[in-house]
């Protein structure tokens, strides 16, 4: 019998029962909640007269709607009444049921995918779900993690399980070493550029190879975060000593004898050498350049030294039409060099790139320079209150502030613009977030996805530049 993939092992160890019709019930170890996708689930639960199966598996935070200024004032100070009601509703639901929640003024609060790993609430070998597609992030720990819809949030609350069907196994091997100055964000954007936004549909993608192993845990989270942008609900990286070192000492990580047992178990969370994958993709990591997206979905991406594609040179009418529509929306011309794209705003943040390492990378580029006069706004939004205080302890906030960046309180912010942080129509933004869909960062806004270092350099230059020249 062939060996098992990491995904096979995680699936098998969470299988409660397999039904004859092909569906299965799988057990959920950790359920993360936020204010946007949970209210209807709590309502449904109450209407059906049900109660949560296991309270201590749940951890809630507020992130999508919260303002990124003056959070210490708490929920009452949210100016937008609909946002305020939604945040308040999560507070009320968690209080009523007894679910642990980091409220707005709590220093541990922040973006749900930043705080799970930060607290050790995400552990290797767990199943982790959340009503949010970027739950794939947690797969960086060798956990089976994926986004779910609101009905499933209710299902997990009520049963601690999900009805699921096993996905296919896909492995993307990034050979290395990565080139000088290349970050995790460049790696994942290059992968999506190659396999497309539906390339991983129906699959759990394991990211492997030297190009992945050489990344820090923060970097691996960035890669797994965007598995969903490649169509896969699940991204995974095998457990190694970096994983274990990251988890050690976190508030909810196991301690004492449990720690030793856990480490022994976690060390088995790798794909067997003879495991067979349904799909294998190889990417030459040595060739990856700093990436910039030019279009309206994440596969519309190219290297910094590339050009916006010319639709006239595309034969397939559907692809040509999609590129034409994207260029029209983005206000770009076919053949235009990427470095000629001028920016209006810069956003460093989101669950993809708002961890301490991301902020360090950006600060290194910014240090001693000034944001270009042509930039309306450049903002840094840390992923959590703890990331924020860590960055302040290292003096990163001062570097950003002296350069003319805004230094904000944690949250999703301009990643999806549900709070006051948004793009105006027609504005171009260098953004470290994960989605460049039409209107994502504000109606009519134009998003270019880049790494923190590339966003920082773009803020200084006023247009995209190859950040490696400044390293």
């Amino acid at each position: 019998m062939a060996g098992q993939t990491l995904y096979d092992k995680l699936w098998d160890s969470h299988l409660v029962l397999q039904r004859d019709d092909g569906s299965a019930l799988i057990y959920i170890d950790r359920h993360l909640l936020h204010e946007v996708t949970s209210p209807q689930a709590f309502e449904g639960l109450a209407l059906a007269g049900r109660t949560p199966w296991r309270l201590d598996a749940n951890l809630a935070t507020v992130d999508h709607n919260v303002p990124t200024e003056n959070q210490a004032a708490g929920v009452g100070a949210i100016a937008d009444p609909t946002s305020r009601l939604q945040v308040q509703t999560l507070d009320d639901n968690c209080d009523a049921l007894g679910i642990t929640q980091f409220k707005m003024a709590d220093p541990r609060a922040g973006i749900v995918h930043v705080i799970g790993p930060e607290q050790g609430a995400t552990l290797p070998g767990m199943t982790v779900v959340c009503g949010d597609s970027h739950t794939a992030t947690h797969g960086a720990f060798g956990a089976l993690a994926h986004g779910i819809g609101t009905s499933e949030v209710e299902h997990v609350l009520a049963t601690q399980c999900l009805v699921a069907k096993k996905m296919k196994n896909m492995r993307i091997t990034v050979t290395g070493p990565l080139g000088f100055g290349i970050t995790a964000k460049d790696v994942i954007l290059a992968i999506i550029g190659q396999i497309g936004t539906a390339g991983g549909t129906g699959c759990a993608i394991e990211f492997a190879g030297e190009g992945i192993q050489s990344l820090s845990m923060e970097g691996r989270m960035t890669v797994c975060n965007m598995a969903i942008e490649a169509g896969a609900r699940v991204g995974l990286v095998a457990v190694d000593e970096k994983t274990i070192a990251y988890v050690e000492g976190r508030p909810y990580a196991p301690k004492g004898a449990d720690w030793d047992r856990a480490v022994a178990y976690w060390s088995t969370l790798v794909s067997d050498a003879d495991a067979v994958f349904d799909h294998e993709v190889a990417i030459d990591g040595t060739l990856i350049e700093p990436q910039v997206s030019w279009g309206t979905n994440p596969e519309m991406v190219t290297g910094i030294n590339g050009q916006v594609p010319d639709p006239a040179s595309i034969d397939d009418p559907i692809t040509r039409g999609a590129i034409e529509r994207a260029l029209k929306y983005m206000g770009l011309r076919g053949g235009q060099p990427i470095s000629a794209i001028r920016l209006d705003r810069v956003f460093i943040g989101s669950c993809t790139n708002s961890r301490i390492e991301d902020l360090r990378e950006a600060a290194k580029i910014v240090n001693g320079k000034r944001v270009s006069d042509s930039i309306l706004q450049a903002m840094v939004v840390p992923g959590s209150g703890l990331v924020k205080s860590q960055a302040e302890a290292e003096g990163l906030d001062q570097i950003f502030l002296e350069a003319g960046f805004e230094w904000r309180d944690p949250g999703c912010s301009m990643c999806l613009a549900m709070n006051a942080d948004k793009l105006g129509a027609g504005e171009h933004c260098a953004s470290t977030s994960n989605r460049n869909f039409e209107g994502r960062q504000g109606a009519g806004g134009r998003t270019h996805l880049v790494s923190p270092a590339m966003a920082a350099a773009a803020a200084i230059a006023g247009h995209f530049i190859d950040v490696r020249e400044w390293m």
Partner: protein
Amino acid sequence: MQQFIAETGVVMPLDRSNVDTDQIIPKQYLKSIKRTGFGVNLFDDWRYLDPGEPGMDHSSRRLNTEFIMNDPKYQTASILLARENFGCGSSREHAPWAIMEHGFRAVIAVSFADIFYNNSFKNGLLPLVLTGAEVDRLFAMTTGDAALELTVDLATQTVSGPDGFEARFEIDPFRKTCLLEGLDEIGLSLKDADAIRAYEAKRRHETPWMFQNIG
């Protein structure tokens, strides 16, 4: 959950791939804590010329007459036709809620994003996959003066229409039964409560740290 047995109705062709959930229902409407009220904001950015905010009177907004949804021919459409990777992007279940509330009961596409596909079934919306060739043919059939009408039959897993159009689609048996009977999935899972408890007891013993109280 709403049952789905069969649907005969007008097809609205949306000739794009990668229609993402941010387009299906833009984020400002996600601030609602209800399950209803999203239909009028389905495809909001494409459908209206002026920007929309929750709570406004949407009936007085300017319509984008170039967007197909505003074509009088499609006002009663109940089947949506699209191309690859429909529903990609965020996990928001507000997307199927908006599509259903507007009056669609089925979406035909070449492929769907996983989470959207899954969410649809929980709400009685049938997402069904046809081949690229079949979808091409359906798009071609929508170019006439009259709107195209199709019948989607879940029991026989077929789509049929004029000019002898007949196509079969696959669907997994569990989802099919849930839709046909309008079953409450949570209730079904709770029938296996003993199995869940047995699994939990075993895992608590093997991996106690996973059950640490995080209160």
